[in-house]
């Protein structure tokens, strides 16, 4: 019961957030440019323009236009993207591009969490020892290295040099080996499709191998942030009185750290993880460019360069949704980790 109330409340709270984002993006795009440019070319006769304007409701007052936009949104009409060559509905394009990006972001997140949390713990428990120094240098590089440079270096080493040296090398781009496999998307998630729908283990492993480099490249910053957050919250927590109490019970250092301290230290780290996930989606632009990844990031950049307002609004809305969902999941995890906020 409590859980249901909690979920309901979170959903109700999310509605104004999504509406806010929606309104602000629409308003910004309204003042930035005349949307009519999306529907005409240089060869459109001047006389036809008022007709086109009326056809799209662009001669109405801004308020009416806003409501037209809203009603279209709810009917699944997110506008038409004009920057992709052949004009296509935004919603369709998002559905097509989204899985590639989400798959990459999830892999990046797994890298970041699976490596970041243990590294943070080691760094804190071996404070000022060699392990700590190495971890901190590693984390500092993560937050200070430009991602495009890091991606290129990864590619240079693990793709180019390794192949030069005759070592097994990682693929330099794409989601799968296009010469070996042909892929008809079902869900669009390559890992899911290859395994569940095509029962093709080779394709699955191939897809995994293709995810390693871009996944790590994209996740490195988040990995660094999680490591640093975990280290500092762990250092805070092991000074707490309840850790002294745990030691006074005769528990081994392992149990003290991994049971009593970890659970408490995870609470602030989880917040960072939630926020970072949204950032991974928007941050995927550079990684997707370097590794020729057919995802949302590259598509959104092209939309921005072409002032493709429908596409930009659609992308922004989607990212807002992801932020809301990520924060929702974070709140759920909070409730599991910390009994004090369970009913809050």
């Amino acid at each position, binding site marked *: 019961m409590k859980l249901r109330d909690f979920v309901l409340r979170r959903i109700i709270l999310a509605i104004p957030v999504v509406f806010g984002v929606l309104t602000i993006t629409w308003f910004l795009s309204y003042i930035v440019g005349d949307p009519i440019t999306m529907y005409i070319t240089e060869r459109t006769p001047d006389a036809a323009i008022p007709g086109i304007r009326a056809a799209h409701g662009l001669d109405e007052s801004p308020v009416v236009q806003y409501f037209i936009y809203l009603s279209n949104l709810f009917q699944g009409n997110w506008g038409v993207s004009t920057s992709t060559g052949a004009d296509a509905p935004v919603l369709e394009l998002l559905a097509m591009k989204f899985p590639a990006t989400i798959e990459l972001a999830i892999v990046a997140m797994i890298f970041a969490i699976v490596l970041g949390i243990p590294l943070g713990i080691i760094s804190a428990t071996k404070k000022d020892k060699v392990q700590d120094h190495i971890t901190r240098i590693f984390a500092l590089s993560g937050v200070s290295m430009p991602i495009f440079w890091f991606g290129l270096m990864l590619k240079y080493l693990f793709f180019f040099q390794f192949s030069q040296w005759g070592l097994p090398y990682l693929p330099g781009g794409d989601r799968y080996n296009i010469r070996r496999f042909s892929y008809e998307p079902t869900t669009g998630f390559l890992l899911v499709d290859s395994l569940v729908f095509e029962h093709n283990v080779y394709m699955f492993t191939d897809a995994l191998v293709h995810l390693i480099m871009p996944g790590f490249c994209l996740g490195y910053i988040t990995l660094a942030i999680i490591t640093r957050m975990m280290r500092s919250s762990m250092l805070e927590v092991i000074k707490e009185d309840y850790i002294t109490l745990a030691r006074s019970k*005769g528990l081994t250092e392992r149990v003290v750290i991994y049971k009593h301290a970890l659970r408490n230290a995870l609470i602030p780290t989880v917040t960072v993880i939630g926020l970072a996930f949204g950032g991974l989606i928007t941050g995927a632009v550079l990684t997707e460019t370097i590794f020729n990844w057919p995802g949302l990031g590259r598509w959104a950049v092209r939309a921005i360069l072409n002032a493709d307002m429908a596409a930009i609004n659609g992308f922004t809305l989607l990212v807002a949704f992801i932020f809301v969902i990520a924060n929702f999941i974070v709140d759920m995890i909070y409730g599991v980790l910390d009994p004090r906020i369970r009913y809050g």
Partner: protein
Amino acid sequence: MTTTPDDLVLNVKELYLNFYTYEGTVRALDGVNMFLRRGDTMGVVGETGCGKSVTAKSILRLVEAPGKIESGEILLYDKDQETGQIQEIDIAKLQQEEMLGIRGNKISIVFQDPATYPNPVFRVGDQISEVIELHQDLSLDVLNMKIAKLELSLSASTTSENRAEIEEKINYYKQQLDNPPKPDKKSKREAAKLKAIEMLKLVRMPAPEQVANQYPHELSGGMRQRALIAASLACNPSILICDEATTALDVTVQAQVLMLLNQLKKEIGSSIIVITHDMGVVAETCNWVNVMYAGVTVESCATLELFEKPIHPYTAGLLTAVPKLHEDRDRLPQIRGTVPNLITPPSGCRFHPRCDYATKICKEKKPLLEEQKPGHWVACHNPLNS
């Protein structure tokens, strides 16, 4: 200080401990001596910063870097449950791994602040059963638990075959009672939980079953302190250290908890060290007192004796600072001066800059703790009342 070790459980001898900080070496303990007899409740008193908590933590070897025991002995007289033989263990020389079996099992501690000592993310019952599971064998408890469960289902079941089957099982378990098998982890955990509830009952916790499933933030300060006491008593420790265990509670709860401790002491057979600022607490609960000043034991004797005829000038000062009900004074007398900085402590007797009886030798030579009268140890060159 020496007495026959037969009736001792703990004997701390000439304990020295430093903290190596950036500002310099803090000479926090500079000759702590205390012994605890079986069944006694000993008070440790002294102004703030005199090293009471550090002493308590040293006894459990919980002092962390930059703190280091320099010299001295912390002798634990551990009575073997079966043979009754007494074994002497010097805690000061043990490795950290060797301490694990002593902490929470033979010596346990209750700290001052019930708000910050329980782990906020675990259930109260689990925090108690954790220590039980860690130190106790529980094979007998598991067996008894299984039998009790079967007996319950026996009274519920009706068909005769069913009953026969259950009875057979009960008999099978009962045969094992003399030599119970090692329980599996899951049933051990379950038995530990039941025992945790027993412990909560023992500390007179209202609604113990319910409290066991609650989180610390859902309890009041007094209830939390009771839960902490329950955890610390769960393994029948021979020594229970209460480091200002009642200071954070309001006066009525404080009295309740102290009374409870003295009752439990008899039920469990522990000896207690009560660390406090409060002379009233000492008078009510302790039969022996150890007075510390700036990391040094300055006086040690029976409570009555201390209140009636203190010998050390510092103790005398402490006692005049205690307000009495029938007195009518505008200001409480205080010992003049302040607690010294332990990085550059005063030479000789550490109390000399504040002492009204100080003479030349006090600055030059550190007084040793000596038995001035039978059963009354004092470290002073110019003892009072003698």
